């Protein structure tokens, strides 16, 4: 019984680790899409910043510098997305897609040019990464049943960025629904004309929104390569940006429900990892491929019909054109 409980607690712990980049990206998506800009380039920006973080950390030895550069790169690509979609009123999906394709190729190419390791970055030492923060008494608490295990395994032992991700959910909620800036941001995604006639620049609001999205995406990328992992690998985001997008839609563009959706996807991922090699009666070992595909299948199923009617911000995807 105690063993089963420990297994469960460890799965929850893993859930949090896997869900962290999803949470950050989902919040990024909420900022961008609430302002009316579709952002499928979450994936690409996360990949670019994962690469940047790992490269800078490997070259200069500082995870903080890695994080900083990752965020800057991600925000630059947000600006590119904004320039195409806001200033030039381009198609938002196409622009996002272009960034994703560019990211996939660019990271590998530059990676080979710098490190000549087939697109990989060198393995990072522990001082080059964000390492786990052990909370006080975690070791001692392990022996206390139930609560102690939860404290030691689930709450303690995460790196800083996991906490940043959780904090970002509450910050997103606060900014969107409790500040005047949030009111304007939501208005610009629902009815930009109303914001324009109120004397506020729609363009400026939308640029601010995509920049915040870039910031959050950059943290998510850095988490993948220098906190959760210890190097960058080719296409290491593996669709997490899209899954975050799905979680955001599933959460109806709201922070807390989106967080829940991210945790659910994370949980599936964590279970999948634990189920590998488990024997199923009359069937034999659980096939690994089947397990790995589970979160993606769920994404499709959820988006296809089980989420009820998700009502997106009304002006989403539409460039704002001043009319007479």
């Amino acid at each position, binding site marked *: 019984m105690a063993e089963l409980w420990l297994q469960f607690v460890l799965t929850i712990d893993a859930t949090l680790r896997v869900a962290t980049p999803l949470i950050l990206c989902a919040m990024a998506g909420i900022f961008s899409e609430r302002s009316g800009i579709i952002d499928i380039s979450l994936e690409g920006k996360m990949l670019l910043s994962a690469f940047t973080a790992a490269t800078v950390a490997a070259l200069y030895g500082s995870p903080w510098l890695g994080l900083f550069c990752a965020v800057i790169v991600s925000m630059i690509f947000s600006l590119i997305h904004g320039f195409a979609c806001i200033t030039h009123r381009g198609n938002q999906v196409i622009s996002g897609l272009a960034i994703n394709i560019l990211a996939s190729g660019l990271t590998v190419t530059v990676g080979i040019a710098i490190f000549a390791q087939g697109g990989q970055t060198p393995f990072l030492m522990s001082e080059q990464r964000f390492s786990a923060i052990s909370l006080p008494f975690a070791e001692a608490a392990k022996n206390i049943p139930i609560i102690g295990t939860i404290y030691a395994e689930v709450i303690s032992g995460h790196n800083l960025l996991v906490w940043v991700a959780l904090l970002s959910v509450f910050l997103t909620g606060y900014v969107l*629904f*409790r*500040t*005047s*800036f*949030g*009111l*304007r941001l*939501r*208005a610009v995604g*629902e*009815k930009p*004309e*109303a*914001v*324009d*006639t*109120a*004397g*506020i620049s729609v363009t400026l609001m939308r640029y601010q929104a995509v920049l915040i999205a870039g910031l959050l995406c950059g943290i998510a990328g850095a988490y993948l390569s220098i906190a959760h992992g210890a190097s960058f690998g080719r296409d290491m985001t593996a669709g997490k940006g899209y899954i975050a997008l799905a979680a955001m839609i599933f959460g109806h563009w709201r922070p807390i429900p989106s967080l829940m959706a991210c945790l659910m996807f994370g949980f599936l991922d964590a279970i999948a990892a634990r189920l590998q090699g488990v024997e199923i009666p009359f069937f034999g070992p659980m096939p690994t491929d089947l397990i790995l595909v589970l979160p993606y299948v769920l994404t499709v199923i959820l988006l296809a019909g089980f989420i009820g009617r998700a009502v997106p911000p*009304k002006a989403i995807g539409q460039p704002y054109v*001043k009319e*007479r």
Partner: protein
Amino acid sequence: MPFAISMSGICKRFGSVQANDAIDLNIASGDIHGIVGENGAGKSTLVSILYGFYKADSGQIEISGTPYTHNSPADSIAAGIGMVHQHFMLVPNFTVLENIILGHESDRDLTRSIEHARHMLMNLAHQYGLVVDLDAEVGDLPVSLQQRVEILKALYRNAKILILDEPTGVLTPQETEQLFDILRSLKEQGVTILLITHKLREIMAVTDCVSVMRGGRMIAHLNTAETTPEELAELMVGRPVQVQKQWHQTQKGEAIVKVENIHLSNADNQNLLSDISFTVHAGEIVGVAGVAGNGQSELLNILAGITAPSAGAITYHGHRIAAENPANAQTIKALGVAHVPEDRHASGIVLPFSAAENAALGYEDDVSHGYKNMFISPQQLNARCADLMQEFDVRPQHPELTSSLFSGGNQQKLVLAREMSASPSVLLVGQPTRGVDIGAIEFIHQQLINMRDSGCAIILVSVELDEIMSLSDRIMVMNNGQIMGMVNKSDASVKAIGLLMAGVQ
């Protein structure tokens, strides 16, 4: 005392169109000043310049004696100008309070801004009699209250000059009266009001002075008390206009359209139409009156076979089409039903097509348009269109010209020509004169009367109550997807119809 607004020599050009040409306009402080003009006369451009949406190419503006040089809505708001737009600038899923403070929050913190505004708005509401539930979601409010929110929004920003662009288009006659009461009380409090409209009756009812625009120029400034609707109409059009309508009593024939218990509900199971039943006889015009968005459009689409009803049946000439077995638009057209859609740009014509192509659209496999063995003869298509243009006075008479280059009135005449030339026994007409100049309105009304006299059954949907009242033999009033009443022409009064439009029986 300086003028509240003083504009001189305002010019604005869009591409090859001179939208405003050396406009001079002085508005005395505390006046209700009307601007009238036909569509495209340049009224909207002028107020957009005043509100800072556009920068004038040349000319000066003074607000209360101070030169006004800035050019953004934010600057105009700061100068004390507020505007109620024709299409409301409100976020439907925000509350009234959130909409009012948007862009003008008193604090970074939203809750504090809202509470601060609540206090101020209570005072404003009391002062001007503008009562609205401040915590209601705007999308749930009827349009007349949404308009109040717009007015409150301007007052909250300390507007001393209020511009209203076509404010009565979405109101019932009683709501219009209420709006005018509000405007009069604003005037008493010293607010200057600029009213843009094309309804002369309203100009006469509420304004002190009126300016007339035509073709981008300011034609006349008049004291309302010293003018008449006839004079204003003549100034707007530039020639004498027949104000007396052409309607006369005729004998109606047999019932050829029967609508029985039509219901329509949307995906959310809300009733858009409930229990609609009526008959229309040959040689009769039935006008469908109502504030926009009360089910008229849905009804028209069902009658034309574009949407299938959820329940009920329609009978044309004894052909019964029940909801269980709906017909498409083509089948209905084959029964002799023609349809002039409400929105000509969305569903009446294809703008990039030539006039000749549009004149044949929907009837393109008709031999009279030159159809033969799957092929269409361009010469015959053009020749046919030239005939129609002659008959319906479409100008310029170039069948090969792209449709988007015609004026709204001429585009509408082209659609009417196409539908009427098919000699239908039933004609469905939606908003036949929306965005159409007065000269063309006269002509279109005459054509509708002629069709009726030749035995056609006409169902006319329009938000212009004047149009409905002057053309219809019977008036059917709709509110919230239901028929509120069917009134004979002889019994119809604006007041009675207005009450029915508001849902009061």
